[in-house]
């Protein structure tokens, strides 16, 4: 029983990291029908920026954090302006190939210009184990879960309550109708790309101490987040949240109780089952935005 609780907390804390990356997938797909295969690299690059600022240049944590988010959102902005804007007319497959290319470009670019080695990143929160009765878990896990939950909640409020958020929902439902209602669709799409890279930038700070900083960390992370988005539901923020947590839990529990070698296979089997039984995802809703 104590094992189970420990595993649940561990799985939850991994899962919520997948969630914050997965939410970006959902936002991009909803507003611009972009499947971003470079999503993992959008986490990897801010990680390296953070290492550069905080560890190499020895800037204080809060300053390097802010600059990282700034750099990350600039990256998202350029991504939309230079690539996606031109590719939107070409359809899904063209965007898939281009983002695959971008993913390789960023990955190997980082490997060549910086380092092929794994860099360590200091833990933001104390990893001091907390002990309640027999259950031992690291306080880092709890902090990750709490802070990312708050960020996701804020994002949810932004989309539901503010005018910009509502414009995003409108674009997601129908680009034509949104244009007729006087919404500048291209501006909203740019906003969503910046929002996505802010999320991945924040995600990077939390992912870095857990997954370590390496040029190819984005591959697994991006794929897991993508799977999480589909399992949870591609049209809901809470879908991405539920999906990420499910993937994290299934992975951790399957590895502990069933088979380490087939850990990834269980996620895939879950994915196939979800697609067969409830293709709109665990928390997804058919034909409705966000």
């Amino acid at each position, binding site marked *: 029983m104590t094992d189970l609780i420990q595993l649940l907390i561990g799985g939850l804390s991994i899962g919520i990291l997948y969630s914050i990356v997965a939410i970006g997938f959902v936002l991009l797909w909803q507003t611009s029908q972009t499947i971003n295969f470079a999503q993992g690299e959008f986490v990897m690059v801010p990680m390296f920026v953070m290492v550069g600022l905080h560890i190499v240049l020895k800037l204080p944590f809060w300053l390097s954090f802010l600059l990282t988010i700034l750099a990350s959102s600039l990256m998202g902005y350029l991504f939309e302006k230079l690539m996606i804007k031109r*590719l939107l007319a070409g359809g*899904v497959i063209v965007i*898939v190939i*281009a983002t695959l290319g971008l993913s390789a470009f960023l990955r190997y670019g980082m490997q*060549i210009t910086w380092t092929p080695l794994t860099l360590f990143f200091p833990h933001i929160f104390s990893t001091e184990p907390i002990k309640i009765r027999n259950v031992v878990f690291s306080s880092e896990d709890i902090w990750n879960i709490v802070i990312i939950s708050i960020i996701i909640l804020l994002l949810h409020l932004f989309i539901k309550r503010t005018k910009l958020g509502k414009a995003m929902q409108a674009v997601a439902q129908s680009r034509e109708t949104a244009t007729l209602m006087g919404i500048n669709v291209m501006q909203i799409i740019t906003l969503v790309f910046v929002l996505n890279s802010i999320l991945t930038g924040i995600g990077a700070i939390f992912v870095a101490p857990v997954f370590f900083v390496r040029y190819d960390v984005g591959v697994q992370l991006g794929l897991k987040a993508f*799977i999480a988005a589909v399992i949870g539901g591609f049209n809901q923020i809470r879908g991405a949240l539920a999906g990420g947590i499910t993937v994290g839990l299934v992975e951790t529990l399957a590895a502990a109780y069933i088979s380490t*070698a*087939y850990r990834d296979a269980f996620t895939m089997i879950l994915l196939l089952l979800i697609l067969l039984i409830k293709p709109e995802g665990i928390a997804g809703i058919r034909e409705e935005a966000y």
Partner: protein
Amino acid sequence: MKGWKGWLPWGVVIVLLCIVPWFLKAYTLFILSFSLVNIILAIGLNITLGYAGQISLCHAAFMGIGAYTTGIMVTHGWSFWLSLPLAGLIACFFGTIIGFPAIKWKDHYLALVTIGFNIVGYLVMQQEKWLTGGPHGISNISRPSIGPLKLASAVSYYYLLLFFVILAILSSVWIIKSKWGRAFMAIRLNELAAKSHGVCSHHYKLLAFAIGAFYAGIGGSLFAPLLKYINPESFTFFASFEYLIMVVIGGMGRIEGPIIGALIITMGPEILRVAEAFYLIIYSLILILIMLFLRKGLVVVVDRLREWIPVLRLTKR
């Protein structure tokens, strides 16, 4: 085609391909042989993706199924010629199964289901040691012979591959010009309209996957004796991305597309190796640029050349 003249440029290319192996170093010949295998695979994917419009990101898994079928059978003393059609059929069987999700889902769902299948397939190849030899794979896969004629040397095996490439091109032209091909294109362009004209889109989507997988199985089966050694690393979902890239870079829905794409994507990195450490960066940058400025693929360049050079004008667009 304008009579026999339409085939002339193709004939010139084939004659060139027949002469060229005698002048190549062993490694270059291997790369050329490998790109021939990739042409067969890309032609298959072009039918699924380019003509029928169904995203398939598990082409490498189908190839793996073919390669392992041949690898296992040949090392257990069966004839290669028996394993070749069987490899195609087994891959075709799995292709049909993967086709079922395509009836219901599109775009990112289909992309994901197929990636999922590729990952599960890879894990099976890696873990089921009794069948596949695990991460070490299968070695000592001998090359076949036709009667008394042994195809053990690299050059003779190259000719066998060339024969199958020509067969693959001709058969794909035949499929595309048939009723099936027209149905595929109708589904890609407008599924609803196709249905209302009596095209059963369910059957044809399954068929598109089955045909694509069949080519992949045959390609895999030919791949195994080429290397004489196979392991799961050749059949990851990254390899599936490569095949997707070949088809799109070459030009989806065109006969020449996958041929150009397979040649460029297989040989390009080898040529770029002069850039040493930077070659992957340059490679991915070129990929992005082609998508930005040549969305229809490199066949567009060939079309342009055709307008400038009169001899090439003979081939059909």
